[in-house]
């Protein structure tokens, strides 16, 4: 078993599934790149080289490079999916989903329901998300809340290479539209990744560490921020449980609720804007169904309600960091100390 980056793990998953199942095809801008050819056919292989090499192995019939037309990409993918293929569409930056959101939420997400269960739409939309890349307000967003809000979509946000591979294979085999969001700032993070194909079921959280004092729920890149905070806190004798739900829809509610039942405190870390967000979603879940166990306020650590700044120093201040998570944990724990004092 070798260490692989998230980028390599995603590539690996695509390659293995394309080998295993001839109905799996790729559609996207620049996905044919990195084939070692010359000229326009040898661009990167996706903006950050994730699909590099696939065109060479699977050819133009299965790796479909498109013009800049996200609405066509998603429309084609949705049509291919209901016609028996398993398309994996790449939507370069999730910020661009605004031009093809109709195809996603009004068409693909609703086919199964509107056709009385008789239509299957096995498509995956891969896209890059997140800030930290100095890419300004229109190329840095974290829009998972929008997809999570819409019934009929599954939303996957891997935080590490092992999960990325297993979740993407699961996504490709899933019969519903899956939004697969790769955080552009952690593509190089490495992990032990089996060479074989494997699947990680949706709706099953990864519990990275267990502690009795507070439950920290975090997704995507924020998992690492949460772990950093947990380490700082451990040095001060505060033991945190860190939960990575891996998929925001479906959500592993039980793992979160069971943990808060034990710790009595919840902090949610989410890189997205705060309003109607995944952070509020988890908070509301717990404020209803684990209310009796809560010993302090539920604290959310999110971006502010503003676009992602372009200025590097502002962008750094915008993204949640370990110090903010640590402060949030201490704030909710303070409520308990006050109550005991």
């Amino acid at each position, binding site marked *: *078993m070798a260490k692989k980056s998230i980028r390599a793990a995603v590539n690996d998953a695509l390659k293995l599934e394309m080998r295993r199942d001839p109905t799996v095809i790729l559609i996207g801008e620049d996905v044919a790149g990195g084939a070692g050819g010359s000229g326009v056919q040898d661009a990167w292989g996706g903006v950050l080289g994730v699909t590099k090499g696939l065109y060479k192995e699977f050819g133009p019939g299965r790796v479909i490079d498109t013009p800049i037309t996200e609405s066509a990409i998603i429309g084609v993918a949705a049509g291919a999916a209901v016609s028996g293929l398993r398309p994996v569409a790449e939507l370069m930056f999730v910020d661009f989903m605004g031009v093809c959101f109709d195809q996603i939420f009004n068409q693909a997400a609703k086919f199964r329901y509107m056709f009385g269960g008789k239509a299957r739409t096995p498509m995956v939309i891969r896209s890059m998300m997140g800030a930290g890349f100095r890419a300004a307000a229109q190329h840095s967003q974290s829009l998972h809340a929008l997809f999570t809000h819409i019934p009929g979509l599954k939303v996957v946000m891997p935080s590490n290479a*092992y999960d990325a591979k*297993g979740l993407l294979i699961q996504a490709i085999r899933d019969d519903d539209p899956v939004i697969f969001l790769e955080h552009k700032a952690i593509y190089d993070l490495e992990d*032990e990744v*089996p060479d*074989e*194909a*494997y*699947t*990680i*079921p949706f709706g*099953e959280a990864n*519990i990275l*560490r*267990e502690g009795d004092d507070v439950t920290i729920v975090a997704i995507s890149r924020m998992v690492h921020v949460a772990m950093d905070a947990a*380490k700082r806190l*451990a*040095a001060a*004798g505060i033991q945190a449980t860190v939960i990575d739900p891996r998929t925001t829809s479906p959500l592993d509610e*039980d*793992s979160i609720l*069971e943990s808060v039942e034990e710790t009595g405190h919840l902090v949610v870390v989410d890189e997205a804007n705060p309003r109607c967000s995944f952070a509020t979603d988890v908070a509301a879940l717990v404020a209803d169904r684990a209310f009796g166990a809560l010993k302090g306020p539920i604290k959310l650590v999110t971006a502010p309600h503003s676009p992602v700044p372009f200025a590097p120093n502002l962008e750094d201040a915008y993204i949640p960091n370990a110090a903010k998570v640590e402060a949030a944990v201490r704030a909710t724990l303070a409520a308990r100390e006050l109550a005991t004092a």
Partner: protein
Amino acid sequence: MIVPITMPRWGLTMTEGTVVEWHVQPGASVGAGQMLLDIETTKITNTLEAAEAGVLRRHVAEVGQTLPCGALIAVMAPPETPDAEIDAYVGSFVITEVADAGGAAEVEPKTAAVGDLTLNYLRAGAGAAVVFIHGFGGDLSGWALVQTPLASAFDTIALDLPGHGKSSKRVPHADVAGLAGELAAFLDAIGVQRAHLVGHSLGGAVALAFALAHPQRAASLSLLAPAGLGREINAGYIRNFIRAERRKDVEANLRQLFCNPDLVNRALAEDVIRYKRLDGVRQSLEALEGAFLSGEQQATVLRERLAEVQAPVLVIWGREDRIVPPAQGQGLPANVQVEWLERSGHMPQVEAADKVVALLKRHFAKAA
């Protein structure tokens, strides 16, 4: 009493580890199973948990330090133990577990083509051949604590059965006889004619079937908590092993394996879960389940044929085994030597590795 915390050996190929992070500070009370520190090896970063409750008095290894397996990394002692006593203990500590294991540091697993299957195995040391056959859902790494010391005197070979570990995730012949046939083909493929066979649980039944089918190839037979000696078995463990998906359920199931359930840490459970997610594993395990179980009982019982085995037979059984009833180790034919282990469950090769090593050495010597 002063309790040393030493650098663990997590498998045959581990010789040293690096302290990544301390989870517990000196002076803190720790419970059994609590995370003490993270240790990075060449392969993986893992967490060492406290084997028993107590007070952590001293960090001997600081973050970033790399130490050989067996080296002292921390000291636990009651609060009343004077610091001077701990100083003295640290100053006089000597590594008792020798890190060398027949050049094991360089050992990497290999694969052998067996029919259309690829079987993974780890081979270390030189001498008479010893073959380790794991049980249902296990793999060769389960033998690490036994294979490592034996590799200094034997040609040790631990394989991953079909559907397990890093072998092909298909089990074309899922019954005990079929698996024994795969074992024979595997030994042919790696050029081993005759070996001491060490089988655990289902692997014990396979070893026994092999010895019955190929009497001339078995130098000796060692069966740890073996299947195949009676009908009764904890079928629920097998079914849960296949079907439990959440880590807490997997952990609860795995705890049945041990007398000391604290040995089931998150890393072990995570390894099992990751294994089960691999393509083909579910089908492999279900095939094995289908062939191995008949209702809630074992389908294959070779107890009556035990007396036919010509090689010396050793049976090792933990008295606290909750998977295969230790009672099945009673009343065996006279050619079978039975050893009972106190405070050990279904995994004596882990829970009582030192004793198992000693018993195996004596047994191999007798057979020689």
